[in-house]
């Protein structure tokens, strides 16, 4: 089946005081309809820039190269007018902080219906009906009343649900969720993730979840791409990646997590994965991620990598297919065979 979204060799360079620096460097990935792809990485790894480039909404002055194909249609190079028909309609985004992303002085009803009518051309009455259905889908109580309320009158979790409903309003094929649970209480997070999972299955929608939280990944994503300093470090099925990580960075991320026995979510992580570390000391990755413009030569991770060899300082690693669907951008491959 042809991939819904195919990104190839995406590079985004941003203007800084020291000239153009790459925020995203040679990223490639695909997403199928009905699947949840996770993009993992710390802040500054280029995750959000990758998402924004799908919409053509990068900061002014940004230079983009590569290929982004949605349903075989090339998005890069399209004019603003054409992109506007795609934004919201084919691809939609749920931003990180629902409080900041929902317009404070427009009603929930307006937020839901304005682009719905613009993209789908439905009448006002029908838009209102659809809006009510959407609020129902995301489990907002008393949708009729909610339509006339303002985002500020809802709690954080409900606001995120509303934001998701807004994203769904024009029936997109692909939903990009940028840190959908980071700004929420832990107790509320699970509900949001379940909602995303359900929507994905019910609507045969593709979802890209961007987060630094590997726990979220394991709960909802089928495949994960790990990004570091704008480059792809490792990619593969979630269960495999989290149980047998092959990139030292992924390994480091996992080692730094407190381990609690977790029952497998949609990612289907096998229970053995949680056995190894419970009770072991947390091991943070030494150093900090490079900022824009300070990316080390060769493999960007090598200064912090405990397995680095001489070639890591000079050769830029290219993602290679290991087996099946596991991609690895680490030529030395020091973790091959580790458990």
């Amino acid at each position, binding site marked *: 089946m042809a991939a819904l979204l195919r990104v190839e060799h995406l590079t985004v360079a941003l203007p800084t005081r020291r000239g153009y620096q790459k925020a995203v460097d040679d990223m490639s990935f695909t997403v199928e309809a009905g699947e949840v792809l996770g993009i993992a990485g710390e802040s500054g790894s280029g995750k959000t820039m990758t998402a924004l480039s799908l919409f053509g*909404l990068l*900061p*002014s002055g940004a230079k983009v190269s590569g290929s982004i194909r949605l349903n075989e249609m090339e998005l890069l190079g399209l004019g*603003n007018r054409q992109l506007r028909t795609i934004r919201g309609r084919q691809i939609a985004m749920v931003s990180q902080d629902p409080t900041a992303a929902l317009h404070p002085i427009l009603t929930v009803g307006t937020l839901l219906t304005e682009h719905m009518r613009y993209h789908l051309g439905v009448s006002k009455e029908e838009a209102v009906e659809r809006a009510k259905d959407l609020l129902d889908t995301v489990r907002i109580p008393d949708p009729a009343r909610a339509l006339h309320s303002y985002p500020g009158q809802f709690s954080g979790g409900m606001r995120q649900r509303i934001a998701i409903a807004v994203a769904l309003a024009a029936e997109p094929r692909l939903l990009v969720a940028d840190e959908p649970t980071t700004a929420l209480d832990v107790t509320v997070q699970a509900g949001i993730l379940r909602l995303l999972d359900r929507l994905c299955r019910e609507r045969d929608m593709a979802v890209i979840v961007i987060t630094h939280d590997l726990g979220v990944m394991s709960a909802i994503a089928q495949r994960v791409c790990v990004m570091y300093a704008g480059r792809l470090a490792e990619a593969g099925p979630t269960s495999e990646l989290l149980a047998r990580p092959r990139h030292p960075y992924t390994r480091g991320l996992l080692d730094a997590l407190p381990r609690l026995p977790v029952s497998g979510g949609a990612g289907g992580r096998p229970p053995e994965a949680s056995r190894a570390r419970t009770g072991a000391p947390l091991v943070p990755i030494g150093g900090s991620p490079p900022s824009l413009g300070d990316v080390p030569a060769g493999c960007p991770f090598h200064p912090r990598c405990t397995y680095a060899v001489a070639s890591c300082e000079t050769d830029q690693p290219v993602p290679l297919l290991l087996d099946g669907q596991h991609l690895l951008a680490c030529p030395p491959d020091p973790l091959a065979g580790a458990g």
Partner: protein
Amino acid sequence: MKKPLPLIGLAVIAAWAVVAIFAPLIAPDNPLGQKFAILAGPSGSHWFGTDELGRDVFSRVLFGARITLPLAVILVLAAMIIGAIIGAVAGYFGGWVDNALMRVADLVFAFPGIILALAVAAALGPQLRNAVIAVIVVSWPSYARLVRSLVLSARSAQYVVASRLLGSSSIRVLFTDIRPNAAGPVLVLAALDIGNAVLLLSGLSFLGLGAQPPTAEWGAMVAEGTQNFNDWWVGLFPGLAILTVVLAFNFIGDSLRDMLDPRTARAVRL
């Protein structure tokens, strides 16, 4: 040159400062000497023409700088100091002192500037000194409010609390701990305010409540221009002088404000 405006502003002010200091040496004629042809247009010997009493307008404009520039600066400094002290006292001690002082500030602030200045100047008598006092009376509230809010936010800051715990007296805290942080925004306000001060001062003189004849003050000279319409040069050049000075101060103040305000830098454009 990415930001020419503040530099142009500085250059213009510097030029006028030079003019103000060296006017007796630069000016071709005595600004008060009425010995030339009456109301002669601009010419080689009188670049700005002559006025209705036969005085050389160019010289008068140059000498006008000696009045307007120093007075505006003194004025703003006085308003700033008075306002800052009042604001600091209000913010630091709070309670009824704060309330009382701020009510007074609000009252003065509520009045449209020139009307209050008008009343004060008229009440005190038409004299340049009184016009300056009037503008000071009108200007101090903005400084008081600013300093008060700065003091309020600084008062609860860690370093101030620490200082008090170490036994510093109130005055000492105000001066050594709070003042350095308050200085910046207050100076920006002052820079932006000088332009307004010049406009108010010359406005009062225009109305006859400031500089009295035969003093060569720009506002008063523009007033003379209204009496002699046909002789456009009498009023035009003094007004241009005011314009350049105020514009220059606004260039400077504007850039200062931009430098301190990062928020406008965030917008993303398509």
